[in-house]
């Protein structure tokens, strides 16, 4: 009989004990992170959606409500720029899901919107888990990454907004996980996985192309890298890589382009919305070379970075990690590269709208997580260092959430709610509002539950406004609303009201807006 004896030195046993305690502490910290995230995301759950970027949240909500009320799905309505009311931008997966759920289950629309937004955010952790697994990250380390993502103050706040950002993120991360899975297990499930990659990529691209862009880069890079490695190892399996490249890049690109073309065609049907086609907005979306060359413009991203990872010291930790965590240096640099790629592609959007960081902020958090993972992998003292750095980051994240977002969630903002109530009372449900001074924000039409023509220019009767007014039938103009600084043009207002046969006396004033009603 042979007996196997494992010899272990006392030092080894000691290291294991230290390592296991630090691992337990790391896991406990991660559990606290998940707990805090769930608590924070529910703050102000019943509050209105006009706390931040109400322009965008209400635009999505008014669309979801149109679908809820039986409106068209693909040519979905955003009734703020006059007939024919359809104004599609993104593929309406999220809007449709929210609208139909609210309709079928008779639930309040805004809470359903929040719920799906939060569900997609937490669901993203599932494909993210597999992405990390395919990258060779072990279970304990994967938990660190996911804990940091869920604790990011920026993600907590925007994952409860009435927006499709988390839906797009879910499909993007799923797409990347499927690409990595296909590369790993190509032979057996290859055709099915390729179809899944093409579908998920197409959905991700059409739900939010700005989110998909950096994931498309990541997927393409992964395929080319795998091909390069195989090529140098003597394998000649080029065909499968080409086919995967078609499924992962060409098909999503074509389908996203087709959707954009379709949306542009609909927007071109009215001169009021023709300026919103992708071609007309190209400069707005991509920005200029000059913008990218101005260093001062990058400082503008500081507050957004703080809201994602707490503060600048944490950002400095990532940079230091590239130097002192050589084992994960490539991962950190890759994550930072993908984070910055989205900004560099859609510079102006990121510059103007802080919430666009939802698309790429995840890579910044992952870069930070790789620093902690790199420390964790050093064993013994390294694990304690990792636990301390994780605790530091968690402190920074939670403090940032409490400073920047807690009150935004907790306070019930009213916005144009007061004038919306006046309009709901004074007009019929099928009446249309002519609104001045609020750009083309959907907030007031959404809150008043009325269709609108938002005139964002001046009081002139331009051809596009004439088009909108002449195509109103069978609906009619129920009120003219003049808001903010536009109220300082009494003569022009008088002329406009007179030409529309409206009373020139103010019916009611609220929310810095004057309401005028038609002559009886």
């Amino acid at each position, binding site marked *: 009989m042979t007996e196997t004896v494992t010899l272990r030195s006392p030092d080894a046993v000691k290291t294991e004990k230290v390592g296991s305690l630090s691992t337990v502490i790391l896991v406990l910290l991660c559990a606290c992170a998940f707990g805090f995230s769930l608590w924070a995301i529910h703050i102000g759950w019943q509050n209105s959606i006009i706390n931040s970027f109400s322009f965008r949240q209400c635009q999505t909500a008014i669309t979801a409500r149109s679908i809820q009320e039986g409106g068209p799905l693909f040519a979905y309505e955003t009734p703020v720029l006059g007939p024919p009311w359809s104004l599609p931008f993104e593929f309406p997966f999220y809007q449709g899901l929210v609208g139909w759920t609210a309709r079928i289950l008779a639930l309040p629309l805004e809470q359903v919107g929040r719920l799906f937004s939060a569900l997609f955010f937490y669901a993203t952790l599932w494909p993210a888990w597999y992405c990390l697994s395919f990258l060779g990250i072990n279970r304990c380390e994967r938990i660190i990454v996911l804990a940091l993502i869920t604790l990011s103050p920026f993600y907590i706040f925007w994952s409860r907004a009435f927006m499709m950002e988390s839906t797009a993120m879910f499909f993007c991360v799923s797409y990347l996980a499927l690409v990595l899975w296909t590369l790993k297990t190509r032979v057996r499930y290859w055709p099915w996985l390729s179809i899944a990659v093409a579908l998920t990529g197409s959905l991700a691209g059409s739900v939010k192309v700005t989110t998909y862009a950096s994931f498309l880069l990541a997927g393409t890079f992964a395929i080319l890298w795998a091909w390069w490695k195989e090529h140098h190892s003597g394998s000649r399996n080029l065909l499968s890589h080409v086919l995967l490249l078609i499924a992962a890049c060409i098909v999503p690109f074509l389908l996203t382009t087709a959707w954009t073309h379709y949306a542009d065609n609909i927007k071109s049907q009215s001169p009021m919305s023709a300026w919103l086609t992708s071609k007309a907005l190209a400069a707005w979306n991509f920005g200029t070379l000059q913008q990218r060359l101005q260093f001062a*413009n990058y400082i*503008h991203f500081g*507050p957004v970075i703080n809201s994602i990872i707490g503060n600048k010291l944490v950002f400095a930790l990532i940079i230091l990690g590239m130097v002192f965590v050589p084992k994960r240096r490539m991962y950190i640099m890759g994550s930072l590269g993908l984070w910055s790629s989205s900004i560099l592609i859609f510079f102006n959007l990121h510059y103007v709208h802080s919430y666009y960081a939802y698309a790429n902020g995840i890579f910044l958090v992952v870069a930070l997580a790789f620093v902690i993972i790199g420390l964790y992998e050093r064993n013994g003292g390294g694990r304690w260092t990792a636990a301390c750095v994780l605790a530091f980051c968690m402190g920074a994240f939670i403090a940032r959430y409490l400073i920047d977002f807690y009150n935004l969630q907790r306070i019930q903002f009213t916005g144009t709610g007061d004038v919306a109530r006046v309009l709901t009372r004074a007009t019929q449900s099928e009446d249309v509002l002519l609104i001045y001074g609020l750009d083309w924000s959907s907030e007031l039409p959404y809150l008043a539950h009325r269709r609108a023509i938002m005139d964002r220019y001046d009081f002139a009767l331009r051809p596009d406004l004439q088009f909108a007014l002449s195509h109103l039938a069978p609906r009619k103009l129920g009120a003219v609303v003049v808001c903010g600084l536009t109220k300082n043009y009494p003569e022009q207002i008088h002329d406009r009201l007179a030409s529309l046969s409206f009373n020139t006396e103010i019916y009611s004033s609220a929310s810095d807006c004057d309401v005028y009603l038609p002559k009886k």
Partner: protein
Amino acid sequence: MQYLRALLIPIFFLAGAWSTLLPHHNEAQVLQILRHEHLQVPFGQLVLGNIETTGNVSELSTKRESKIVLAGWTVFTQLHDPIQQLDILVDGRHMAQVQDFSSRPDVADAYGRPDFEASGWLASFSLLGTMPGKHVLLVHATSQNGNTGDLPSLILNVQ
């Protein structure tokens, strides 16, 4: 020993929170960006700008022999219609022209309009030949699409 190390965890947690709370003075700026609170472009106003040499006064006094240096910023509020040229007129007489515009990230930041960045300008001209007395100084702007507009005029008191 490892239990002592465990005590470091709350210390690092508090240090992380403290490091975030420290630059608290920045909160207003952060909230402005997060809540998208920017200055609004006045409705219907095609041209925005300021002659900063004069501060908030509407009259500028100068000597007849002197050289005037004016600085400021000017933008056209419509999208994709940047400023191309600025002409400075005194009583309708052309005094100076500006075609190079410097970076004004503060203007772009204040309005949340990155296209407002290339809006800074500097102009200098001599008042030789200008009679003593009060004159109207006008800054006339032209955009790339051919739109034109004026900044609020100044009274130039030549002594």
